[in-house]
């Protein structure tokens, strides 16, 4: 799951950037608000889930680890 998330973030960001699992992806600037929208759509498709708008928060999407935890909760 982690490697798929990293791959989606890299494609969405459109820049070469090695995402660390606990890195704050929204702070370092690798993900801006435009690429965040792309990433959310790609995550929904890849993991066949619907992410409610109200749950698109910093808490759930700040790092590869946070995204994995959030998606696990959504899938279960």
């Amino acid at each position, binding site marked *: 799951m982690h490697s798929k998330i990293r791959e989606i973030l890299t494609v969405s960001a459109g820049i070469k950037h090695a995402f660390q699992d606990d890195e*704050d992806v929204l*702070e370092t600037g690798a993900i801006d608000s435009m690429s965040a929208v792309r990433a959310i759509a790609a995550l929904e498709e890849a993991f066949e889930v619907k992410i409610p708008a109200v749950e698109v928060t*910093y808490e759930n999407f700040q790092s590869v680890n946070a995204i994995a935890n959030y998606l696990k909760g959504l899938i279960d």
Partner: protein
Amino acid sequence: MMAFLDDTLGAHAVVQPEKPAFIFKDKTLSFAELHDHSDALAAQLRALGLERGARIGVFFYRSLEVPVAVFGSLKAATTFVPLDPHAPTERLAHIVNSTDMSAIITSDVLATKAEEIIQKSGVDCLVLGPTEAADTCKKTISWSELVAGSQRYVTPDRVDTDLAYIIFTSGSTGEPKGIMHSHRTALGYLDTLLERIDIGRDDVMCALSPLIFDMSLNEYFGGPVCGASVVIAADGQVKLPASLGPLFEKHGVSIYCSVPSLLVSFLERGSPENADLSAIRWVLTGGEPLAAKHLRSALDAMPNAQYGNLYGPTETNSCSVEVITRENSDNISSIPIGRMGRNSRALIIDENDVSVPVGETGELCVQAASVMMGYWGKTESKDIVFLERYGPGGVKETYYRTGDQVRINESGTLHYLGRTDRLVKIRGYRVELDEVEAALNAQDDVAEAAAISFCTADNTLTIGAAVLLSPGSETCADDLHRAMSDVLPSYARPSLIEILPELPRTASQKISRRGLEEIFQNHQGFNNAQ
């Protein structure tokens, strides 16, 4: 009357020592800590030999170190320069070089980048803050040592016209311009703000803008001056606006302040109805015009709030404020930029620098205590941006030319009509790009719109617009073209409307015109306007 931005901090630290001055994530910095740590930092800066007026870079991601660095620099009688951690090293090196910066205060995560910047700049500049120097040949003083001192600190001799800070904005030419403000001009701006917007010790402000954007000074100066607490929002909370409602609710934020685009993102995509926003007393926006329909939805989402429109380029600070209450919001079609603050004056001139009669359109020139001291290192541009007039009694008065087209009514309320430089000629007709934007923004299906001009392959200037749809809207570009033909003359209609899932943004969350140009540039058959 205060003379310096740090004058009241000591008193707040005595009266309410434990109260949080700043809150970031789960950490707080009390008024006593802000006062003591900034005293210690100022003493260190003095001990390092940094002289009055020396330029100090403040280079951090959002964190509790930022206000300490700001007030440490002020108390040391130095001038702070916010450095954007997201900016390219070349741009930052240019700023370090052109200001002949003496020190950069930073953190471990940015230490390497700070060294790179300094190396590129060719300036002999200290790096302060990291635990270890990235370049092992150099010495550094760690953050904990910088703020550890407990000796009573006495500020050195200084005057209120000393530069407090320099903010670099990306000039239209691409070369950053350093806008210089003194303690006096910054306090002049707080005076204008506080004349209309009451901010007190019971308030909780939220710093949504980064320090590199002058709107953040509402919080970074306003909080410590007024004794209010400031919650610093994380970058991720600003980028994902559904995070904001819970943040405001958790801390009981009472003063909301951002650019309109962020407010609109929050209202349209941030599910504000899921959070208790009853503590919010003021919704403030500035930097861009807010559409009237968004004002109404803001006041619906924040039922106890009044709205304040803060107007003023970075060069003048906010110099004009319009307050709109809930009761008054219904009949408004466009939001005025308000009345000038006390002790300030507006002059509206035509193309020949002649004053226009009340009610007619012209360029706004501002005389106010909050107007900048000038641009860093650019004495020659002074004449272009300032206009001199002889006032009553033959006294010479200096006005700053804003480049904004306005109209003033009999009661002294200013209405913003667009940028002088956003006025384009399409097939010989004058078109305000801001008017095109406003026409799109007025559509129910449109959450946000931006219009730019560009050259087509056959070299004719035309208008392109990018649109972010309201949630749930399924309208298409053709529908919007039809809607525009009902409200705009043919020459003013966008020839291309692009519906996007999100608009490109600048670091301050404003719409990025350069980003839009790139989007239109990617269209086959079109060339970018130069």
